[in-house]
């Protein structure tokens, strides 16, 4: 389907983002948070790319940088072939209509002073010249497609529940029919029946308009349902990447194994929770040698503490950053 010559919708190369913490001490260097430490991947048109990983591992930072809402410390982001951090303001604004984001925090991202109709129409007003009638029609359509009512246009965001607000945020991202949608936990606030409606809608949009997705989610079943490919992140790096089904069926990184083992499954009665990972997350405020997962890894060997494992190709589009990728238990 994808000729090798197609321009990826999104191409991220060696992306780094380091935050400086407030100075604790007048004479000491301020601390740093190493949020992204060299992330690279591409997404081809009409495909869906999932990003999963530990809370705080840099997923939202990655999303914000891809949306040009933050400037990276190093590395490049190309959308439809354009280097985002090499464009002037006008060119970037013109390009923006092609990529939209659903934020992790819908409360913070919906302007409480405006009615929902205006909030949802906002990207339309900047991107294209549509008549007022047309705009109302478009907003009504998109609200219905996320399971809300056209009449909800006249209410304020605070009059909705958490999940309803999340649907407003999704409607706003969909209204311009963008080519790339970066969705940060878009369904985590929804109950499963509304979630199913939204996930089906995301798939339908992909089938009919060829939308490309970058989807961040903690719900591995959601990622498996939507995404062709998935990247597993740990402390600012991709530690495993591959085709979703194959990767979840046969993980090649011990962190992915731990994630899969921790998924709660509704069973009959109070099943016992899978054992949690031992140990604490290694410092994010210093870059160590060796593998960042080593101190929590049940398979760690002396080599892991000394030598950082590179992301290596295991064949069949599967990459893993583990010295012992081949030994990860099948579960």
């Amino acid at each position, binding site marked *: 389907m994808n000729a090798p010559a197609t321009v990826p919708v999104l191409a991220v190369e060696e992306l780094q983002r380091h935050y400086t913490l407030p100075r604790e001490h007048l004479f000491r260097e301020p601390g740093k948070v190493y949020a992204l430490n060299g992330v690279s991947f591409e997404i081809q048109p009409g495909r869906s790319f999932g990003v999963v990983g530990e809370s705080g591992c840099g997923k939202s930072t990655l999303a914000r940088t891809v949306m040009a809402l933050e400037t990276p410390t190093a590395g490049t982001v190309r959308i439809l072939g354009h280097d985002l951090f090499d464009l002037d303001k006008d060119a970037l604004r013109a390009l923006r209509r092609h990529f939209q984001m659903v934020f992790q925090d819908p409360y913070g991202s919906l302007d409480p002073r405006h009615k929902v109709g205006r909030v949802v129409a906002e990207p339309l007003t900047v991107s294209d010249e549509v008549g007022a009638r047309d705009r109302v029609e478009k907003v009504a359509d998109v609200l219905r497609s996320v399971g809300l009512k056209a009449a909800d246009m006249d209410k304020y965001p605070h009059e909705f529940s958490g999940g309803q607000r999340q649907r407003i945020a999704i409607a706003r991202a969909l209204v311009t029919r963008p080519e790339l949608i970066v969705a940060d936990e878009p369904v985590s606030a929804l*109950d499963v029946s509304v979630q199913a409606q939204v996930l089906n809608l995301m798939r339908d949009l992909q089938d009919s308009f060829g939308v490309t997705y970058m989807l961040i989610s*903690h*719900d591995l079943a959601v990622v498996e349902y939507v995404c062709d490919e998935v990247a597993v992140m740990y402390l600012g790096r991709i530690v495993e990447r591959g085709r979703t089904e194959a990767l979840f069926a046969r993980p090649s990184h011990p962190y992915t194994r731990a994630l899969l083992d*921790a*998924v709660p499954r509704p069973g009959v009665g109070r099943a016992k929770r899978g054992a949690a990972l031992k140990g604490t997350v290694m410092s994010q*405020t210093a870059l160590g040698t060796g593998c960042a997962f080593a101190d929590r890894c049940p398979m760690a060997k002396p080599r892991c503490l000394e030598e950082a494992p590179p992301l290596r190709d295991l064949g069949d589009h599967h990459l893993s950053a583990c010295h012992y990728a081949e030994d990860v238990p099948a579960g």
Partner: protein
Amino acid sequence: MSLLRVENLEVTLQTSVGPARAVRDVSFQLERGQSLGIVGESGCGKSMTALALMGLLPEGATTAGRVMLGEDDLLTMPENELCGVRGNRLAMIFQEPMTSLNPLHTIGAQVMEPLLLHRGLHKSEARDEAYRLLDQVGIPNAKSRLDNYPHQLSGGQRQRVMIALALSCDPDILIADEPTTALDVTIQSQILDLIEQLVSRLGMSLILISHDLGVISESVDRVMVMYGGTVVESGPTQSLFHALAHPYTRGLFASMPRLGGKRERLTTIPGTVPDLADLPTGCTFAGRCPLVTEACRAAPPPRLPVADGHEAACIHLDLATAARPSELFS
């Protein structure tokens, strides 16, 4: 006597389109050391039920019924007394970590505040305790992060600060509204273990609101399923998951994507929730139910027994349980 007794709770909210009956006729009891899960459609009144217990409903909201904490009715308690109850006996993890943390204060200051206020610790003790609490919820390098502002933390880290805050005053009852939605599954399981320990060791009682049915099935003794502001099914976790009875509950389970499952189109429940400002006279689920008959629209359904302590508000339970959930809604 039960620790908490909620009787016929009603909550009516003022909206721009008129009064909305967000919670109707909700009753339940909670014993010491017991845990109750609440699941249900987005917008069905879960958070409003929780906020009513906390006395933190939005402006203009009116209530009816009783919320008895021991001898005291929280619905009629004056605000200054309620404030003391909130600091000490009841604590809530709010669904919206960003709006419930103050963006202008460091997280250290916010976690220390109740420790200084309610537990009377000195500043340095409070700082040590704040560090311990943040470390306990798995915030890496907690010490150096006490001086961070909320926007400098990731979504899940903010959520964990909220959890630390709620646990700081050793509450008798913890109300956790979607406490782990922003957390990856390994940290989620660490947090749920922590809460479970507090329940089993210290006899804390728990109300857990979550739409993650896996989390619910692993974490609570009893489950209450809500739809359109009211309870449609409730029962012991084991019994409820073993024999889903109400058509809505069955539809809910059928819509869940399963890890390792086929990537077939997900089952959905067609239609949308009824308008709370204009509720139907009969069953609230009637407009979307595949089994609906005239009788369903005529009067609200009675709660019928399914098994010991397990009941569902539906007059077609036999038909509902006969069909596979995915067939019911296809």
